[in-house]
């Protein structure tokens, strides 16, 4: 019998700030609950120790400005390393599935990282997925984000990757951070339909969430046929969460997990440290391990929530529309959405709430017939101290064609020549697992090779 792997890394000596929601105390009561239940002793569960994620594995996913060391603490490396340990064991066939019950979280960390946004520096799931694709030769991965906040970082990182399906349901972006994740955000011209967003109104209950799961998420997953399913297991949809306004219960989360059957779940948000986390985390572990979670109950049980039935038709219509979009994803005339140019360009403004950084990006993807196309990001980050950091970042996809690869290298060389425009110039070649960084002021290049 294969076990459920559990890495529990509560980072009891790490916090963003002493009173910040992302603080030492966050997983304390979860620790109490799962230790008292004897979860680690169950024959269905194998507790594993995390390892430190290597900076090279972070460069495969992120452009860290100016470098990895400036943006990560040991806690970040351990949180990402936890998913790597579990992923290795799962793909080697030694574990049935796994749960990285770790902090700090990561799903708001985007491709370019100037600082901390939404409590995140490093996108744990994205780092793990890119690492596993390189290390174990898998190709198709699905990431299902069940945090109350839109997983905008993960979406950003895989927006142009047709082999990574990203699905996020969350509280409607008009009512909560980060204000994105609408159903029209569907992926770039070379990965259209591989991003699906299901914004849900405040007050959504277990019943509606499971409706979305059964009628949209599971059919799409079944159709996509991923080799690995990752769940960004945020828990702030819980009815008692101080940040979110949803009405999901611990058993709702456990039921979701038991039906979604992710290979790897990674903790994201969830800040009701006492009233939700001990129960939701226990429920998720039991569901992954195939054990009965029917007796997992919050202290104020029985609490039941009802939604206004008048809201249901809207939800059903959104699910229908998205499912239709998914079916037609490769048949639609994309030029009506993205134009007919060789390069598709979009502008983005990224705000770093924790660090007060404003980043203006121009993202350009080559609409290539042979591969997902190389990506160029021109990023200008205004720091609260008035500093402006200008960055040029080039990304070559894992399954790049030779033409895109050579165009990206040419662009990198050209940017270095006219070096007065940028402080940092990066080339991330996922196809060769080689990452270059040029520091204009120092006039020096650093290379990280796998």
């Amino acid at each position, binding site marked *: 019998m294969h076990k459920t792997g559990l890495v529990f890394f509560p980072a*009891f000596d790490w916090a963003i700030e002493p009173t910040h929601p992302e603080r030492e*105390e966050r997983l304390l009561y979860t620790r*109490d609950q799962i230790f008292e239940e*004897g979860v680690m*002793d*169950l024959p269905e569960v194998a507790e594993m*120790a995390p390892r430190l994620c290597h900076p090279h594995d972070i460069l495969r996913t992120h452009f860290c400005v100016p470098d990895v060391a400036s943006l990560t603490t040991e806690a970040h490396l351990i949180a990402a390393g936890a998913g790597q340990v579990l992923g290795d064991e799962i793909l080697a066939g030694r574990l049935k599935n796994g749960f990285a019950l770790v902090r700090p979280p990561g799903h708001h960390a985007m491709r370019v990282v100037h600082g901390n946004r939404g409590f995140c520096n490093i996108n744990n799931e994205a780092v793990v997925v890119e690492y596993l694709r390189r290390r174990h030769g898998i190709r198709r991965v699905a990431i299902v984000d069940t945090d109350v906040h839109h997983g905008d970082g993960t979406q950003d990182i895989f927006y142009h990757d047709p082999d990574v399906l990203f699905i996020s349901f969350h509280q409607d972006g008009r009512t909560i951070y980060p204000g994105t994740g609408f159903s029209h955000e569907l992926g770039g011209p070379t990965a259209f339909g591989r991003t699906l967003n299901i914004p849900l109104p405040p007050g959504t209950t277990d019943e509606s969430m499971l409706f979305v799961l059964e009628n949209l998420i599971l059919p799409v997953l079944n159709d996509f046929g991923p080799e690995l399913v990752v769940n960004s297991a945020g828990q702030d949809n819980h009815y008692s969460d101080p940040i979110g306004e949803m009405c999901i219960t611990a058993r709702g989360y456990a039921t979701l997990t038991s039906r979604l059957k992710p290979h790897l779940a990674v903790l994201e948000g969830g800040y009701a440290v006492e009233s939700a986390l001990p129960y939701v985390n226990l429920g998720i572990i039991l569901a992954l391990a195939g*054990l009965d979670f029917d*007796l997992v109950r919050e202290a104020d049980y029985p609490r039941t929530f009802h939604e206004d039935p008048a809201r249901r038709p809207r939800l059903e219509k959104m699910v229908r529309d998205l499912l239709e979009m998914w079916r037609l994803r490769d048949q639609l005339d994309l030029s009506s959405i993205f134009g007919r140019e060789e390069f598709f360009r979009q502008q983005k403004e990224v705000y770093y709430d924790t660090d007060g950084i404003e980043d203006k990006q121009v993202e350009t993807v080559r609409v290539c017939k042979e591969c997902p196309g190389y990506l160029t990001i021109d990023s200008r980050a205004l720091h609260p101290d008035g500093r402006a950091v200008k960055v040029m970042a080039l990304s070559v996809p894992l399954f790049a064609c030779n033409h895109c690869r050579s165009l990206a290298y040419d662009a990198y060389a050209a940017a270095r020549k006219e070096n007065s425009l940028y402080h940092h110039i990066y080339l991330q070649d996922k196809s060769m697992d080689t990452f270059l960084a040029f520091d204009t002021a120092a006039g020096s290049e650093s290379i990280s090779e796998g």
Partner: protein
Amino acid sequence: MFIGVDVGGTCTDAVLLDERGVRATAKVTTRSELLASLTEALDEVTAGISRDQIERVNISTTLITNLVAEKKYDPVGLLLIPGPGLNPHTLNFPSPAHFIPGAIDYRGREISPLDTAGIEAAVADLHGRGITRVAVAGKFSNRNNSHELQARDIVLRLQPDWQVELGHQVAGALNFPRRAVTAYLTAATRERYQYFARAVLEALASRSINCPVFVLKADGSTCPLAYSVQKPVETLFSGPAASTLGVQALTPPGETVVVVDIGGTTTDLALILSGQPLLSSRGARVDRQLTQVRALAVHSVPVGGDSVVDRIGRELIIYTARMGLPYCLGGPLPTPTDALRVLGLTVHGDETRAVDAMAGVGGPLGLSAAETARRVVALFVEMVAREINLMFEEWQKEPSYSVWQIMQKHKGRHRGLQTVVGVGGGAAGFTAQIAAAIGCYPVIPPYASVANAIGAAVARPTMQVSVRADTQAGYYLILEEGVRGVLPAGASEEDVMALARQWLAKRSARYGLSVGPEVEVTQREVFNMIRDWRTTGRLYDISLQTTGGILAYIGAGGEFHA
């Protein structure tokens, strides 16, 4: 002078230490009458000694281990208060349990009251089945023991003569299933252990030995015999703890070694890391069930010098069973000991019989007795070496919950094992080859055959106190005592530390031990509780213990050295 006695399954070993070092040793066969073996060994080491010179006797015993392994105890009723969470039917308890409604949460708050009628019904059921011993354990009873206390009061009101053991009194750490098993084993063994303790005292009195008597616990520390009756399960596995401590005393301080104790039936492995025996992170495992008994991390490989050697097809194998003595010592079947005898790695036993045994197994494969013996030894060495590597890996993989701990481990990762120390009957024959198989140096220390008794003799009492304090809820708990007290508002970390020291002194005084200024802080967790961006209280988890370790190190000539 100090005496150490290890009453093992095969032999009872004793040593006498005086102010200079080892003065006498004895090895006698353990007979069915444990106490006769004990007095015989005592008589041998104390010959010519005035009894009033003996300051202390330390005993390690397999009594509880065997009682439990052979299930020679009376039935125990299990009353569990699991509350919400994991379905308790998922768990395997040592006997059918009554699950009683009632719930406490992680902060010690009552979520739902105890179902007193449920306790009454369970008592009636147990009474009907003739059971008179009960273990009561509740989830989070270590944070709030009121349900367990209520349950006990109900049981004793209905059945005043019953024996009732409570989870929070025997197992204060988090882990409800282990707490239930520990309470169960306590209920199961206490009465028999009391007989044993009384008999030991009588045996010593009959030899006019009236000094303090201590019992070795699974964690390698000792406890006054009189107090060990409260938690007899703590003496589980004191045998392997004794040999580990013996090796600690017989090797230079600060070394990292693997202890290989090769007996007749099993080979016990333990780790000494930078001079300190490694404690198991999980607690002692009894009959496949984990307990909350603090124990050294001992790994038992089910092969020993008396295991049966056989041939299956073209392969030689070693069974994990003992069918009596080795063939060369008059036993029925070939064993690894016969292989050693053939190769001249031991001088015990009849050489001709050993050669016959090996030739009999290897002959049909076209192997000579010597070739067969070499293969058997290689097989044995391979089995043990594999387990050593596994054990070391397991230790390295043990989870840690803070950045600091993980970084410590990361830095220490490459400081591997260097030395294999062999003790026990098979040490002389196998140690060098086991060490070679894992790339280490072999050491067979002086007194290797009585290392366990030396370990018992050099063990010292330690006392722990674990305090949990919750300033928001205004209470503190002394986990080892099951005591709950009122915490003054605004208690600081210093206040909680002082409280822990007071309780450590109080507990130690009760056990007749003095607490020196040297106290070790074994756990120190302080969490700010933040609600709505303000600090509303603090949670402290502080554990102290009196400095443990061993009495002295013993040099090659049997003399003490610093």
